[in-house]
């Protein structure tokens, strides 16, 4: 899909690192909680990270994984278990969950990365379904009840995260750093190779790049950051449940990314914010939420293939051109 979606993104990649968007982001993160309910904001940030990490694969490597819920859900279960049963401090629980997601990403990545296009989407889905089955069957996940009443604990054994505002500060810092990391990676030589692979795999191979290694690295990186999002989410809500490993969740992240803008850095975060707000504030409308989501999907594919941020960027550059 990327061949059509990513032209502007690749041209912007050559531009020097810009600090402006990060200043805007920092300001948003600081004043956000005084305008918006912090628990909701934390949820939005978790999904924003989920979508941005997913986009490393879809937007910048050109691989559509239909199984990313596996990493989100698995990390969520593992860190919830680590915090609740083993009593690890929150940062260790999160690290542990993230590490498991990384290992899982490595295993699934090694097995799937050679498939292409739709076959890749399907085989990742197959593995995600197996992970779902594991989570449903394993003792520690608590079946359909999930892992409940997970204590948020004390950060580094010192700072209690029980208050929503303290927790928010913690989540905001994690999000900001991850975001910076994603931005750095995309604009690194490694990121350039990924984009070369996306644009023309054969050419990248003929230039002497071990394409599969690069793809695998991108897959593992994406899985790890998705795992981070899942691990944090478990502590925010103090629970881990099957929702996060189900295939619908894998579909939802595609929607977020598509809506925000495939192959743009900020796009998926914006898409996540929109979708999560819809789920939250339109929840009273019942089934109509699904219908509205479907309509957005269709509109995006038909008319705004560059997503919200992509379309805005196009408008911006058109205006500047005149």
């Amino acid at each position, binding site marked *: 899909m990327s061949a059509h979606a990513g032209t502007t993104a690749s041209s912007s990649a050559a531009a020097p690192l810009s600090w402006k968007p990060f200043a805007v982001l920092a300001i948003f993160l600081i004043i956000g909680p005084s305008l918006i309910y912090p628990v909701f904001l934390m949820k939005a940030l978790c999904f924003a990270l989920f979508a941005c990490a997913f986009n490393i694969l879809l937007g910048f490597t050109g691989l559509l994984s239909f199984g990313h819920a596996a990493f989100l859900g698995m990390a969520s279960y593992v860190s919830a278990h680590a915090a609740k049963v083993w009593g690890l401090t929150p940062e260790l629980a999160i690290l542990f969950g993230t590490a498991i997601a990384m290992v899982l990403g490595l295993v699934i990545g090694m097995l799937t990365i050679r498939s292409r296009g*739709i076959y890749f989407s399907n*085989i990742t889905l197959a593995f995600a379904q197996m992970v779902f089955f594991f989570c449903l069957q394993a003792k520690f996940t608590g079946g359909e009840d999930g892992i409940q009443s997970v204590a948020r604990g004390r950060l580094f054994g010192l700072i209690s995260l029980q208050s929503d505002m303290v927790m928010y500060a913690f989540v905001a810092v994690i999000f900001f750093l991850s975001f910076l990391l994603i931005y750095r990676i995309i604009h690194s030589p490694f990121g350039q190779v990924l984009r070369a692979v996306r644009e023309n795999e054969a050419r990248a191979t003929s230039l002497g790049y071990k394409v599969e290694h690069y793809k695998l690295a991108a897959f593992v990186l994406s899985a790890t950051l998705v795992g981070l999002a899942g691990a944090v989410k478990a502590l925010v809500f103090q629970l881990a449940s099957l929702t996060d490993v189900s295939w619908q969740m894998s579909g939802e992240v595609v929607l977020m990314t598509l809506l925000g803008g495939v192959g743009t850095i900020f796009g998926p975060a914006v898409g996540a914010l929109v979708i999560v707000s819809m789920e939250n504030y339109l929840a009273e409308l019942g089934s109509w939420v699904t219908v509205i*989501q479907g309509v957005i999907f269709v509109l995006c*594919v*038909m008319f705004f293939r560059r997503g919200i941020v992509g379309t805005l960027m196009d408008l911006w550059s058109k205006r500047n051109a005149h």
Partner: protein
Amino acid sequence: MIEIFGISSQALFGQLLIGLINGAFYAMLSLGLAVIFGMLNIINFCHGALYMIGAFVAWMLLNWLGIGYWWALLISPIITGALGVVIERLFLQRLRDLDHLYGLLLTFGLALILEGVFRQNFGASGLPYRIPPELTGGTNLGFMFLPNYRAWVIVLSLFVCLGTWFAIEYTRLGSYLRAATENPALVQAFGVNVSRMITLTYGFGVALAAIAGVLAAPIYQVSPLMGSNIIIVVFAVVVIGGMGSILGSIVTGFGLGIAEGLTKVFYPEASSTVIFVIMAIVLLIRPSGLFGKGA
């Protein structure tokens, strides 16, 4: 009585037969997907929703217009197929030149819309649809009691599947179709309206889903969720069979029904996952599926 792993052979026969019946649904649905994929290069994610609509149209015909099962078996695929034609003309046609992942995403969105609308209007617990009086009751086969309706399901779906396969492989129309898949420009040059052919193919694939829907209506609850429960499995079937392979989807559909049936006996907990395990294994060994023609 002969026993295999503690299960009597009679019981095993029964389970195999039931697996075959479930396979009939997989085969019909994956056949439609394969036909559509072969011609349009699109993974039709709303196939499940259209299957659900096929069942609902049958229900509406009966409850609103008093039209019974047999007519529904004819009318519902026509109505649903017409809906498919509209979808193709309105949306998919405009995506033809793009990467086919866009088709997948678009149909995913359509599935959400269709399901949401039906859920809003009919609730989620589903509606009953009675087995037509001609087919109630059953036959004692010795090793099991086979409801007549299930026998009918197997007969009709075999007929539809083999008929479709024959039409595509051995008729003139089918040869145009196959040629258009390979080289649309050339076929167009011969004076065949390829665009119309694509639209009708999509409509036909959708009609197959609707037939499956009508067949399923008396066995399962007619429910807005019936499509999303089955679609992911059917995808796996198509992928295992080899995307776009007609015969592959039929054989795999029945085969996986049987594999699933056996799992239900020996390791029931895994029966909803076994298909994905098979899919992963098949794709690791043969990346283009059992009957696919190279990736």
